């Protein structure tokens, strides 16, 4: 029985589902957003922060394209830090501590004020597919809802299981209901299903912690925002705290390691290496101590997040080991740490548009694709939403290049190389790290966001204004500064200028502090953000030119679209392994083919020639 018809349905209202649903409805689609419980809308079931290395870049990019995450994070900010401040502009990332409650309520409010978007508490258990195209979903109540496109953003809820020592529950995160049925439906439709796991540390009552035994970690004195649209700055920042484990902690863990599900075989899912449990760290590394960060979950609430103490050990062991840590001797547990095991799909089953290869119009985004992290989820959600809309419109999908955005790197990695563990963004994954900076995300992506239709007039006008300011600044930077002016700037690098130097060239010199140059009266009228970006562009000029050369080569491969109907098995000159891989992954372009693991440059050359032959013979 079909109850209602929508243009689009988004399953799951976490960080991926939120962006997908907002993008779809903002682009004009009547959209239904399904959530298992209202509580789980834009929930942060793990760490209470947004951003981090690589992830901060993602948030800036989502914002530049017209997504919501940056604004939501700014709205709920408790503390802000620019990571890697001294290590160079290319690797600087923002990380903000956020108020989970405020974040959740803010997103509910955004949903309420978005036309064409309906939020409903319901569980999708099956998909309706007609002639290879998705046609709707079936709810657990048996109700069928029709739609022309569906985005699955089910996070870690599919057939999830919470494990803590000997305890095990069929539950979603934070005691919420899990979703059953959907992964069976996906498997039936030919999408390969896998099992991953992750974990979260305990939440401790705020008033049971002795902060005097910990180091205070303050936010930055320079206050930044995630969104290009946020102009109000955080006034009062909340501190975090740093403490360490010790040999007593480690002894307790070692003595009880046979009760850890990861070690006794209870958990079979694959966990992320970058997010190891404390028992993992102790067993694998012989360090005398491990860092523990204590972070506020909300401004007004009473719980603290114990970063670094994720565990699947039983409650009694958790109590013992947490209480060995300076400052936590008398801690009270509000929630115990747990591991969670869940179903996700093999992202090789996706096109770079995030549409499944098995079912037309069916998109997936977020943790269900084998990624981890709020930011990675939101980035995929945004792109899945955009492409679901374009699918409805019959337009070509938007696929961001690896030289265009971290979002492009993230999605390309997932759909081309696949992943054997929950995938986390890292700057090390980006080839063009100097091009993909967090400061220039708007210049990289806002024009595209405008074209897509997600950048509204306010954002666009601000961007155009900023570009004009930058043009004026570039002209000002052509001025020659006399030695008298440059001498103090060059002093740190041990240089004594004899002749005048063009302002834009000063950044290339060793030891020049951008802020000191900015302090010159010539630049007083320019906003610092714009000045900083220009300074970095000039400082990195030579390196950026090199990156552009590499990009041109990659682009040449990327522009060659492979025929969709090709049977690689018929290309006799290709090695068997290459033929099998190409048939399985069906890359969209030559560039994507070249990045498949196990495809060598020689294979690509053979492929090129085979294609030429095929074209010429066929003609």
């Amino acid at each position: 029985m079909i109850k209602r018809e929508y243009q689009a349905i988004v399953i799951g209202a976490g960080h991926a589902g939120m962006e997908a649903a907002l993008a779809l409805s903002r682009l004009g689609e009547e959209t239904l957003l399904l959530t298992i419980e209202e509580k789980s809308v834009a929930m942060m079931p793990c760490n209470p922060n947004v951003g981090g290395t690589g992830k901060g870049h993602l948030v800036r990019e989502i914002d530049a394209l017209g997504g919501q995450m940056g604004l939501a994070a700014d709205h709920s900010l408790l503390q802000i830090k620019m990571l890697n401040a001294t290590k160079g502009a290319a690797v600087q990332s923002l990380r903000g501590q956020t108020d989970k409650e405020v974040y959740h309520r803010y997103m509910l409010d955004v949903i309420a004020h978005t036309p064409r978007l309906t939020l409903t508490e319901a569980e999708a258990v099956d998909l309706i597919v007609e002639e290879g195209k998705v046609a709707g979903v079936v709810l657990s109540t048996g109700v069928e809802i029709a739609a022309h496109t569906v985005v699955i953003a089910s996070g870690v809820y599919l057939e999830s299981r919470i494990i803590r020592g000997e305890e095990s529950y069929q539950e979603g995160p934070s005691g919420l209901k899990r979703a059953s049925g959907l992964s069976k439906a996906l498997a039936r439709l030919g999408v390969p299903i896998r099992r991953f796991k992750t974990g979260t540390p305990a939440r401790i009552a705020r008033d049971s912690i002795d902060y005097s035994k910990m180091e205070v970690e303050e936010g930055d004195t320079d206050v930044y925002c995630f969104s290009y649209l946020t102009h109000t700055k955080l006034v009062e920042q909340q501190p975090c705290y740093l403490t360490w484990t010790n040999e007593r902690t480690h002894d307790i863990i070692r003595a009880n390691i046979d009760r850890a599900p990861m070690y006794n075989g209870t958990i079979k899912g694959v966990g992320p290496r970058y997010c190891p449990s404390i028992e993992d760290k102790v067993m694998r590394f012989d360090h005398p101590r491990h860092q523990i960060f204590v972070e506020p979950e909300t401004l007004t609430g009473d719980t603290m997040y114990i970063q670094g103490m994720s565990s699947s050990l039983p409650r009694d062991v958790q109590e013992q080991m947490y209480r060995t840590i300076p400052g936590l001797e008398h801690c009270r547990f509000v929630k115990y740490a747990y591991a969670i095991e869940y179903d996700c799909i093999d992202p090789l089953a996706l096109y770079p548009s995030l549409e499944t290869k098995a079912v037309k119009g069916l998109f997936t985004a977020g943790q269900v694709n084998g990624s981890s992290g709020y930011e990675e989820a939101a980035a995929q959600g945004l792109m899945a939403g955009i492409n679901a809309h374009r699918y409805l419109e019959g337009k070509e999908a938007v696929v961001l290049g690896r030289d265009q955005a971290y979002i492009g790197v993230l999605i390309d990695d997932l759909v081309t190389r696949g992943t054997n563990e929950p995938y986390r963004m890292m700057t090390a994954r980006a080839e063009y790290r100097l091009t993909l900076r967090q400061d220039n995300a708007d210049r990289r992506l806002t024009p595209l966001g405008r074209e897509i239709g997600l950048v509204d007039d306010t954002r666009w006008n601000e961007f155009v204004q900023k570009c004009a300011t930058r043009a004026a600044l570039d002209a000002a930077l052509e001025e020659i500064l006399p030695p008298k002016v440059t001498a103090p700037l060059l002093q740190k690098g041990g240089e004594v200028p004899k002749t005048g130097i063009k302002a834009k060239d000063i950044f290339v010199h060793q030891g020049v502090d951008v802020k000191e140059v900015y302090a010159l009266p010539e630049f007083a009228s320019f906003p610092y953000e714009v000045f900083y970006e220009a300074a970095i562009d000039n400082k990195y000029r030579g390196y950026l030119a090199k990156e552009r050369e590499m990009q041109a080569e990659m682009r040449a491969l990327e522009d060659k679209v492979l025929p969709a109907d090709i049977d690689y098995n018929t290309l006799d000159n290709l090695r068997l392994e290459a033929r099998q891989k190409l048939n399985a992954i069906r890359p969209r372009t030559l560039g994507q083919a070249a990045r498949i693991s196990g495809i060598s440059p020689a294979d690509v050359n053979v492929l090129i020639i085979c294609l030429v032959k095929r074209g010429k013979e066929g003609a």
Partner: protein
Amino acid sequence: MDVIAAIATPLGVGAISIVRLSGEGAWDLVSRFFSSKRIEGSPTPNMMYLGRFHGKDFVEQCMAVYFAAPRSYTGEDVVELQLHGGVTVTDAVLKTLLEGGARLAAPGEFSRRAFFNGKVSLSQAEGILGVINAQSKSQLSAAGSLLVGSLHRRIQPLLDELQQLIWLVEASLDYPDEMEGELDEGFLPKLNQLSEGLRALLATADNGKLLRYGVSVAIIGSPNAGKSSLLNAILHEDRAIVTDVAGTTRDTIVESVSVEGVRLNLLDTAGIRETDDRVESIGVVRALSAAERADVVVYLLDADRGETPDEELLQRFTGKRVKLVYNKIDLTEAPQGYFALSAKTGEGVDRLLKDIASLVKTDVVSEGVLSEERHLEAVTIASKHLDSANSAYRAGETLDLVAIDLRAAYSALGEVDGATATDRVLDGIFSRFCIGK
């Protein structure tokens, strides 16, 4: 696209060899070394010009053709240099162009560019496929050889060390909280050690070339020392396989013989006969400079005249393998402790050849050597990038820039062993450091 260059003809065979360049500015690059009286300003496309190629220490008469984009094989600006077929000269021209800014083309790269510019016909496609297949086959067989095996053994530890450095840097960039302070100690010494290792590897590069192209042997000596007789004696030696090698204006190779698997290219130093003339005489200069570039110099002395080595002449060959040989022991006894032979009777000639061959062979077999131009270039590039990482780090440059040089070094060096960087880097980070929360 940047300018790529490669030798387009099989090495060591044929009367001419072709060095081909493709990319924007290919002619500008060539014109820095090539001059022809007939070119005024820019060359006419598709015209063949006779001219001279001026290398650092050689001049080669050759032909050059310029094909203007898009009417060329690759669809880009293409220049072809037709040289005398000698291996050494072809190699020297290529090297000059590489040092001048061209990049050594990857296998199939010309064809790849041709493809991207829509220039490949069906018959060409068939041909290219054959070349690629042949290349991978020869690479396969090369990979199995002792030589590459030992080279690999020497590069692998360097690659491992470089990887560890990259792990350290990338981990401290992506995990600033956990890795705080980890980089400070040990980074620079490790970097220095690695640079040293690469330099040592590069120093063996010449040996690799010896094995591939053969060993050039110059026989010098005063007139009447018996150079020609020795040459004849060598060529009439039964066990020596004599092949014709096209002469080049530069190396003046006349003959080449194979001794115990090592090819010896004998250089004609007839010019030295004119030593009685003015020292500036072109012939002498050419002969001497040919000898200077040779891998082994046989300095022939006349035992009968009681000749002693000319110290001034010897100094010109400092650092080279010079073998002092007394000739004419059929007439008189040679001074004690010197290698002696008789070109006339043939006594000792065989032993001389074996000595020269083993001189080179010992080096080749005992060490891993860079046998391929590509490997040589990879290690050279890696070494340059490491130096630049080193100076950037010491100058207090930010770590993101240091990382670029390290990554570039890794991708260059990785080409030798075919490693793909990203996966290994990430794997290393996770297995080595306790990071993540």
